[in-house]
């Protein structure tokens, strides 16, 4: 199989670029990550990429394959056009090869305070929720912070430092929607800003690429509806 992989080694001083690999590999039932590991094992041990759980749970191997952000570990090789082009996630600084600097991404995640804010004394066992309230969180909590959505969003490309991006915004809504959370107003105050939230124009790139099949655009729309309700 033919691959073209983005290579960058800051220590060598060489210009970053695409390098071709041709490996003898049966794609049947195998994933992009399997091929990356095979290339590293058999051809070029200097190839660097992140991976951990190899089953779409940890979210560490987000890469851009043939122009689409995917998790390498759950993307089938079969059906991909050759040479298969593998690049790091767009718009983030490359540390080396397919490894990107996720600092900006995590900063936005931190900024939305992704934890329960509840000042009531802690109950004996746990803060209870009705099944209906709990169901509100489905489709939100499953996010694994792989960064595929945010780095596919042009609004993030143009304003990476100020637009929170779909992943962080969906986590913001995950806690706004939580019946146990008491900081809804503060959370909405933080988001009511031309940049943090309103750079989203609803083009839904995030929905298209999410490897977990989540819908950040819908969550962002719900935040906007709540802002309208609060203002009127």
């Amino acid at each position, binding site marked *: 199989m033919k691959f073209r992989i983005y290579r960058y080694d800051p220590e060598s001083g060489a210009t970053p670029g695409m390098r071709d690999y041709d490996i003898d590999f049966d794609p049947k039932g195998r994933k992009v990550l399997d091929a990356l590991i095979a290339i590293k094992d058999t051809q070029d041990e200097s190839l660097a990429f992140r991976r951990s759980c190899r089953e779409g749970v940890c979210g560490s191997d987000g890469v851009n394959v043939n122009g689409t952000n995917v998790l390498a570990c759950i993307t089938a090789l079969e059906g991909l056009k050759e040479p298969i082009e593998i690049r790091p996630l767009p718009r983030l600084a490359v540390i080396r090869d397919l490894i990107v600097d996720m600092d900006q991404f995590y900063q936005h995640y931190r900024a939305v305070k992704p934890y329960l804010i509840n000042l009531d004394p802690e109950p004996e066992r746990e803060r209870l929720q009705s099944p209906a309230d709990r169901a509100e969180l489905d489709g939100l909590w499953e996010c694994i912070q792989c960064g595929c959505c945010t780095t596919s969003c042009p*609004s993030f490309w*143009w304003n990476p430092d100020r637009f929170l991006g779909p992943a962080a915004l969906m986590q913001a809504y995950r806690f706004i929607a939580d019946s146990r959370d008491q900081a809804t107003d503060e959370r909405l105050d933080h988001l009511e800003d*031309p940049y943090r939230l309103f750079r989203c124009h609803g083009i839904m790139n995030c929905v298209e690429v999410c490897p977990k099949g989540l819908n950040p655009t819908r969550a962002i729309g719900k935040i*906007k509806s709540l802002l*309208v309700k609060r203002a009127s």
Partner: protein
Amino acid sequence: MRRVGGAHRGLDMWLMQRASALYMALFLVVFAGLLLAAGGLDYQSWRGLFRPLAMKVASLLFAAALLAHAWIGLREIFIDYLRVMAIRLPLLFLFGVLYLGCLVWAADILWSVP
């Protein structure tokens, strides 16, 4: 609640964009209906269409909605692509004046129909 200057502009602009789009959609449907009802599209029937005051007002509001929609869209584009304030703000002002001028012009055209 926070009331710092400009902090709420995001929501206002976004709502205005939605509201103007809604009005334009409604107007265009009604307008298309009126056109079909008027039969042929000769000079006389076209003028007749714009004779009632209600039509003039509705058309002027359509122009206002269109221009507001366009200005907010431009603002979004400028925010994304024009990073230098000294360029972005004068351009927003310029287009604001230009579009307001268009609105006055539209009023003049509409009310020129007796």
